[in-house]
């Protein structure tokens, strides 16, 4: 057991040379060539409002930190040996935000800017630690223009959703989060918020507030301090950059920023009629009625499809049919979003693992209640099923066998796309419906975090694990689905594709190719699942992401 290290003056701070000190003091203390300065009791080390080009590491003695508030000076803490002070103004363009006075004779090591930057180079952990200190000492302030949406939950609790200015992320606040948000006025530190929360029924831990602030900063809802332009930002290691390039190639998306205006105009010029009663109900009935002609036309279409020579031209119809189905599907989502008064941020096309995709960004629907969000998610599948119905009815009405087969093939694609989209185990419409039904936003991310918690080496008995069984169940289901999808993909290649490849390639190569593709799918799946679990484990182990001031770009835009 360690002996208590009470200081007579009640000051705090890591004690040099003993356990509990971090990489900060370890990196900076060996710098014997740095200037040491003695501060007599009562003397001021630095004053609020001054510019600062150096910070100080307290070696011996005690320092009192206070800030000038409209109501008078306010003491915010006392620092003991090992504490760093004055680093905020050193790294940012801001003036000193507090006054520091020695409460007894003290000695500090003076760290000019160059010494600190040099220490960053030799010790990567130092930058993280300084970021942590900055975030704990600052008085965070809400960003201008953040809108607050109130939403009720099934349990009678009021949830607030913050709509950030520009295109930042939406943020969901539980009641304690709202308590924190109301105190982000540029005057409260984390310590102040904790002390105020002690008088409530639900006192907050400082770590909880730090995590909340990290989320709010990332979303753009809280002002972020600007890093001085001469502080170099560290470049990611080569393997990380290579992985990023590979990921961008596998997940290519071409985004159309003007989609919001287009869909707004489409809604005004006729799209709104689809949402007038009884149009939605009629569309649903029509979509369901399409199943009958779909099966009827299927038996006729098979006459042509079973003859490879005659069915080959149908392949030419396949790609355009897929694109049309995708565009209609996304238009359904977009019009529903506009109908509820929200904007479509963007739309686009691309591929995921070489499979073509289309998307609309309906992030703005976070401002809606969950029922409306579910309607937006279901509008795409409903559009696909109406499209399938139209094609199916047209197929049975056709006398021409080729036209029947082509239309039936189109209906088949629309129906398969519908089923695929409703599968909640894929990050598609069904997933959003499920996560909204369960009132569990970011369900996939939470599921992998929950799974990572029960991987050996992490605490399986943590409160988060006990509370997160739906997430664990969902995460396990996703992994089982991935395994099944991988096996069925390999089987499909062997049964369907190999017959075609046999005609083009030599026998040995044709036999080996499906296995090679299968192996590729397995490796990709394992890497995908592994990377998600690793990311979740890193997040759990590291806690909230350390605060990093953003470098200012020449155009003044700080968003990454």
């Amino acid at each position, binding site marked *: 057991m360690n002996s208590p290290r009470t200081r007579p003056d009640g000051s705090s701070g890591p004690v040099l040379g003993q356990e509990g000190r971090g990489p900060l003091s370890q990196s900076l203390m060996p710098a014997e060539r740095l200037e040491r300065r003695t501060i007599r009791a009562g003397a001021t080390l630095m004053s609020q409002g001054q510019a600062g080009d150096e910070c100080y590491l307290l070696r011996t003695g005690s320092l009192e930190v206070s800030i000038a508030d409209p109501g008078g000076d306010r003491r915010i*803490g006392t620092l003991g040996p090992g504490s760093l002070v004055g680093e905020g103004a050193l790294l940012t363009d801001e003036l000193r935000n507090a006054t520091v006075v020695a409460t007894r004779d003290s000695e500090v090591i003076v760290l000019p800017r160059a010494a600190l930057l040099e220490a960053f180079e030799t010790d990567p952990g130092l930058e993280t630690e300084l970021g942590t200190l900055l975030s704990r000492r600052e008085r965070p302030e809400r960003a201008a223009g953040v809108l607050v949406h109130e939403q009720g939950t099934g349990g009678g609790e009021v949830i607030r959703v913050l709509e950030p200015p520009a295109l930042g992320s939406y943020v969901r606040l539980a009641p304690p989060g709202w308590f924190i948000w109301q105190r982000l006025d540029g005057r409260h530190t984390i310590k102040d918020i904790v002390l105020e929360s002690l008088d409530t029924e639900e006192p907050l831990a400082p770590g909880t507030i730090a995590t909340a602030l990290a989320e709010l900063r990332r979303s753009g809802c809280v002002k972020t301090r600007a890093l001085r332009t001469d502080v170099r930002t560290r470049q990611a290691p080569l393997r990380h950059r290579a992985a990023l390039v590979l990921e961008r190639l596998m997940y290519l998306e071409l985004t159309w920023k003007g989609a919001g205006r287009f869909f707004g105009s489409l809604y005004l010029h006729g799209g709104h009629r689809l949402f007038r009663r009884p149009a939605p109900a009629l569309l649903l009935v029509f979509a369901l009625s399409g199943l009958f002609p779909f099966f009827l036309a299927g038996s006729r279409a098979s006459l042509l499809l079973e003859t490879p020579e005659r069915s080959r031209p149908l392949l030419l119809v396949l790609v355009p049919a897929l694109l049309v189905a995708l565009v209609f599907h996304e238009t359904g989502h977009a019009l529903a979003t506009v109908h509820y008064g929200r904007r479509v941020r963007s739309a686009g096309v691309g591929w995921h693992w070489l499979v073509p995709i289309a998307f609309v960004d309906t992030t703005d629907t976070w401002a809606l209640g969950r029922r409306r969000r579910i309607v937006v998610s279901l509008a795409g599948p409903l559009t696909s099923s109406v499209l399938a119905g139209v094609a199916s009815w047209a197929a049975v009405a056709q006398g021409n066998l080729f036209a029947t087969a082509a239309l039936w093939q189109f209906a088949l694609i629309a129906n398969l796309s519908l089923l695929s989209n409703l599968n909640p185990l894929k990050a598609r419409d069904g997933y959003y419906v499920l996560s909204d039904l369960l009132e569990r936003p970011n369900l996939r991310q939470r599921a992998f975090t929950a799974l990572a918690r029960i991987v050996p080496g992490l605490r399986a008995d943590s409160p988060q694990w006990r509370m997160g069984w739906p997430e664990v169940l969902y995460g396990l289901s996703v992994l089982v689905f991935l395994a099944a999808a991988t096996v069925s993909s390999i089987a499909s290649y062997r049964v369907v594709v190999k017959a075609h490849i046999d005609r083009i390639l030599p026998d040995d190569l044709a036999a080996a190719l499906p296995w090679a593709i299968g192996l590729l799918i397995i490796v990709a799946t394992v890497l995908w699942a592994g990377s998600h679990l690793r990311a979740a484990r890193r997040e759990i182990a590291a806690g909230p992401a350390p605060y990093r001031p953003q470098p200012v770009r020449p155009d003044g835009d700080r968003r990454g």
Partner: protein
Amino acid sequence: MISIMTNQPRAGLLKREEVATLLDRWTNDAAFERLLKSDPRAALESCGIRPSEELVAFIGGLDLSAPVQELQARLIR
């Protein structure tokens, strides 16, 4: 940390001044949080607090999950 650092019935384990001392230490020493997680007793004792078993157990089982959740982009495909 904190439902025990109050004047509520469950409290009495920590005085308000002790909470302030812990907060000062947490604010100025990034390593303190790691120590608090790995060895709550040593962390509390390093601040001059003699902790009870209940306090140590409570600190060790803290749930620091945030009441704030960044909502991911809804890119509907």
